[in-house]
């Protein structure tokens, strides 16, 4: 069982419970959650006091938490966007769809590219310099070129988000292959592996931990560039919602857009992490033994 040193009595009591119950029990008996709550309340409270109660200069222009939340959850939103309107979901859907495509393309191209670069010295020598030259160019600098190269609204936005996450996923996968201990290659070699065995049994699984860290960063970067691209050129999407609200001089939908973006972005990255943990049972279980 996973009883570690600290809280032995707790471990005994939790020993019979299912894993998640034990975890919840441990959470509730620690002081952490109350401080967390305090922190959140403090933060929202400050926001509320500054914007709504005292209307401090400059802050008065910003909507406070009460205004934003009542708008977000009102069936008849005053300014057009709430959880009850179709428009809200249309924006969210547009952004999520783009992220989905961009992330899939970037992963589908970047991960194999990174694996091959890590596996074959020669291939890496040929491709790495090109990547290194293109990488310092910020994604946003591609905006005009993307608009010119791809027609319409959709494809330039997807292109920019793809490009951003492509670099990250490729480089992290490459780093992952580099991080594999030499002795695993040697062990595989002296057990009689052919190169393709080494690729599938050593390179791919060995690179997984770094790869998934990379994918988590890459989806964050994809959101980052997506928002930028949607703000510059777009017709739908959360980035557009924000910039559109700004143009129309309404601040509440703007903040709603920001909150939604934060939530959706966080959610997608959690999703990637869960998939990663599922695929790396060996790692999850070993880390669980160390109680990390």
């Amino acid at each position: 069982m996973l009883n570690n040193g600290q809280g032995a009595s707790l471990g005994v009591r939790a020993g019979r419970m299912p894993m998640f119950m034990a975890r919840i029990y441990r959470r509730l008996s620690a002081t952490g959650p109350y401080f967390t709550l305090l922190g959140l309340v403090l933060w929202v409270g400050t926001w509320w006091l500054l914007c709504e109660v005292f209307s401090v200069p400059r802050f008065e222009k910003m909507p406070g938490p009460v205004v934003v939340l009542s708008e977000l959850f009102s069936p008849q939103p005053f300014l057009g966007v709430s959880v009850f309107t179709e428009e809200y979901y249309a924006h969210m859907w547009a952004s999520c769809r783009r992220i989905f495509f961009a992330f899939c393309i970037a992963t589908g191209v970047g991960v194999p590219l990174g694996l091959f670069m890590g596996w074959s010295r020669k291939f890496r020598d040929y491709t790495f310099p090109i990547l290194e030259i293109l990488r310092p160019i910020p994604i946003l600098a591609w905006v005009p070129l993307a608009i010119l190269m791809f027609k319409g609204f959709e494809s330039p936005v997807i292109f920019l988000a793809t490009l951003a996450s492509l670099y990250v996923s490729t480089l992290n996968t490459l780093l992952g292959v580099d991080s594999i201990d030499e002795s695993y290659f040697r062990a595989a070699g002296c057990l009689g592996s052919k190169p393709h065995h080494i690729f599938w049994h050593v390179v791919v699984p060995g690179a997984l931990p770094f790869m998934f860290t990379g994918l988590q960063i890459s989806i964050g970067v994809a959101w980052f560039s997506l928002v930028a691209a949607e703000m510059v050129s777009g017709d739908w999407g959360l980035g557009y919602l924000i910039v559109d609200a700004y143009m129309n001089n309404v601040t509440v939908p703007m903040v709603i857009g920001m909150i939604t973006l934060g939530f959706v972005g966080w959610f997608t990255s959690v999703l990637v992490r869960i998939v990663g943990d599922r695929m790396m049972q060996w790692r999850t279980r070993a880390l669980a033994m160390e109680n990390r």
Partner: protein
Amino acid sequence: MAASVAVNQSTAPGAAAKGAVSIRNVTKVYDPEGVNVMAVDDCSMEIAAGEVCMVVGPSGCGKTTLLNAIAGFHSITAGEIHLDGELLCGPDKPLAEQGADRVVVFQNGALFPWKTLRDNVAYGPLVRGQLSKRDALDKAAQMLADVGLAEFAEKYPGEVSSGMARRAEIVRALINDPKVLLLDEPYRAMDELTKSIMHEALLEMYDRTRVTMFFITHDLEEAIFLGDRVVVMTTRPCRTKKIVDVNIPRPRDYHLLSSEAFRLLVEEASEAVHEEALKAFTAGERELA
């Protein structure tokens, strides 16, 4: 000094007729960025089939270089290495091919962390197409059960103790029926108590298989307890300094450790080892990887 060692008559009854390694005048010079570092200098030794040859020397003296040359991880600069009369590497072929007839057990353990113990053990026969997947897994489970790891077969290496992982790694090597087992300080990071259990398990495995072992260590007692012969190496560059024949009959167990014969052998070897260790320490060079 180019010491050539006569073939040791293995004391083991019914020794296997395979796995004789002959190292002849091997020299290895590393050349990182133009600075020549001689790791092995004109080293020769003969290891008889079925012998447990223990190689002892100070850290970073070049023992591992020798092992890497036999396994085919590194090339050699001069000399030849033969296995059962066949040339592994020589002047025209500095790098030996890697193959499952010489399986290595690594210093820090190299069980694939992403495979369960059973999958790890079954890996060798599977990739060489020797057994079907089912047979390989069955045989792996059987061999793990033989060394008392039956209930851990489906665990990942990260979930079991280092001693168990090391035992499974030796099983992973033995399932391939290698001619020679190359062990590179396999019990380095273990405490004495675990070590003694590992030693007995290894001896038991040896008594069953009689596989030739090239065992690197810097623990003199371990060397004498396990080996048929202990080869003491000099500090870098690596040469043979002294050879101690261990004429203690097998099977051995831990009672041996407190016997007079054992103490005398340790005494015989320790002076040579200490001298080299002191030299290595004063040189203060960083160990070669």
